[in-house]
């Protein structure tokens, strides 16, 4: 009954799903690092990116007569900008007030509420049904040593890694990135040293939604797209962020892949009904034994 090929097939499938969780969780981590808040509407940010990308891409293909792959590539920068704007809106409407008044949970409510509003907006604009997202790559699976992978799944993994590498590079090389790192390290000191921490927080939200929107157009061709795309993904990615550690970029990626693989393996070897259980069990274990996450650093507060 034990078949290595099936095992590898499941692992491969789990990696591509896990990468998406990882990218969304990466978004959570970006904002948490700088402002100790996160966007509970991250799933909806992904959904909006996916739908906006769908519209831009189909419009480009229809009006300019472009083939799908080219339309997809051209659509990407627009979606990234869209994501940044959406993130900035969330920050300005939901989070800024809460930070100013040092409200403990205000930003939680605000981002959840904004998420619901965005979902309703999406339902009104794009309808309530799910629909297929045109794939830029051929939809036939490729065979690698008997394992079947969709070209799009390979793109998901490469795209996710590329995006996260780009953000990390940005943080290390550019001056804005350095400001982000400084604010993450110590917001008070950074402010005193002349860093405009408010702008940094806005930027981190913009980056966070940018990664979510990008994840949205990566995952669309594989999972179908629609206004309800965000909810389940957002929740799973939140679990991944906790498991990986909310202040570690690498941690969330590893956490995502780990969750994706265990989900698939449980679904196969134990029972498809228990597929969601390992993620929740891992979450409970991490919270009990290492609350800062597998790769997170515990914050030491000097009293």
């Amino acid at each position, binding site marked *: 009954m034990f078949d290595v090929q*099936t095992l590898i097939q*499941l692992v491969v499938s789990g990696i591509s799903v896990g990468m998406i969780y990882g990218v969304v969780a990466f978004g959570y981590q970006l904002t948490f690092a700088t402002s100790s808040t996160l966007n509970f509407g991250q799933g909806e940010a992904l959904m909006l990116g996916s739908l906006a990308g769908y519209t831009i891409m189909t419009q480009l293909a229809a009006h300019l007569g472009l083939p799908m792959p080219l339309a997809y590539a051209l659509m990407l920068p627009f979606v990234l900008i869209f994501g940044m704007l959406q993130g900035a809106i969330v920050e300005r409407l939901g989070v800024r007030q809460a930070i100013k008044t040092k409200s403990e949970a205000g930003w939680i409510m605000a981002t959840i509420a904004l998420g619901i509003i965005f979902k309703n907006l999406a339902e009104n604009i794009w309808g309530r049904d799910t629909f297929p997202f045109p794939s830029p790559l051929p939809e036939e699976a490729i*065979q690698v040593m008997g394992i*079947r992978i969709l070209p799009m799944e390979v793109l998901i993994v490469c795209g996710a890694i590329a995006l996260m590498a780009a953000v990390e590079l940005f943080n290390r090389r550019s001056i804005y990135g350095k400001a982000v790192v400084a604010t993450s390290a110590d917001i008070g000191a950074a402010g005193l040293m002349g860093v405009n921490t408010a702008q940094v927080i806005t930027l981190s939200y913009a980056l966070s939604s940018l990664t979510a929107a990008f994840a949205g157009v990566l995952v669309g061709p594989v*999972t179908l797209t629609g206004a309800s795309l965000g909810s389940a993904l957002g929740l799973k990615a939140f679990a991944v962020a906790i498991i990986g550690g909310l202040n570690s970029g690498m941690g969330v990626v590893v956490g995502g892949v780990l969750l994706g693989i265990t989900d698939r393996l449980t679904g196969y070897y134990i029972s498809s009904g228990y597929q969601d259980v390992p993620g929740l069990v891992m979450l409970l274990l991490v919270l009990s034994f290492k609350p800062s996450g597998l790769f997170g650093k515990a914050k030491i507060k000097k009293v």
Partner: protein
Amino acid sequence: MRFARRTMMALVATTALTSAAFAADPIKIGLSGPFTGGSASMGVSMRDGVRLAVDEINKAGGVLGRPLLLVERDDEAKNDVGVQVAQELINKEQVVATMGYINTGVALASQRFYQEAEIPVINNVATGTAITKQFPENNYIFRMSANDVIQSGMIAEEAVKKRGFKAPAILADSTNYGQLGQKDLEAALAAMGIKPVAEEKFNIGDTDMTSQLLRAKAANADVILTYAIGPELAQIANGMGKLGWHLPMIGSWTLSMSTFIDNAGANGEGAVMPQTFIQSPTTPKRKAFIDAYQAAYKVDRIPSPISAAQGYDGTLLLAAAIKQAGSTDGAKIKAALENLNTKVEGVVTIYDHPFTATDHESITANIPVFGMVKNGRVVAENPADLEGANAVRVKAH
């Protein structure tokens, strides 16, 4: 002067009398269905079919001289919302009867409020067998769709007897609909001496079916039997395409949903499912219905033809019952439904005494035919099933 005053009084009197006729107290009918979410295409089609019938009835003068007024509420395919909707429709809106339900779970959760209030419920679409059996005594629940015992029987027969499959895998979702349907399928298969080689489940919203399909493959399944709704069914078909492992899909009527057909694309071609109504003008009444629907809602393909047709027919039966009862009292409408004197020509079939005191199912096993997904639409698997004398199949009494 006196003459003018007399004319004035006559004018006022006639206006008052005519406006009284036009301002007749409308008969409130509740409508509960999912207008958002994964089941929305069924809910919206049902609603539109019902609205079409209500418009036609009102244009012809209404029922008992009163217009029908639909009170529509979105139950979001969630059991708890359905319960809230039921309570609102009964207590606040005080509806005379309610039409509804796409989702078995929502129906089962909400119906008892109507039963207690003695308000009839016409279930247009939900197929869970337990729905009309929930209240054995003095049952107020009626059904227009082909229930799951009928459908699972048809599915099992098609898979085992007609196509000779011996190793079916059942893929069902985790809702009441999927799980109860799976039980019905198991029973139907057992009656033919076949046991499913794999039984897999998944949640609404799941997009990756790799584990479930690989388990079915490891068990050497030769056919996939499904009990789920559109988007997840599409992911099953797409999952098989991805794995390069194509098995025929035979399943419940939801394989006709536009969300399945559109999202599965080429992977969904050839799927078959029991259908009480296929969007095809096989009789003048059906043609008129399809044309009216397309004109009123500006679509070519009805998103869920069965939901629309059964919603339409349900409204016709309810109107006929209210007319026969001569009142809007729930118990009298129920009695009228159970003893309908007039033949009602519906879209699905011609209804002649569709219900009795003990039988609240308007569809018997001989009425549905198998539909097949072909070129993005649902057609009859075997066109002869709907030709000539077979076009209208009536309830076997």
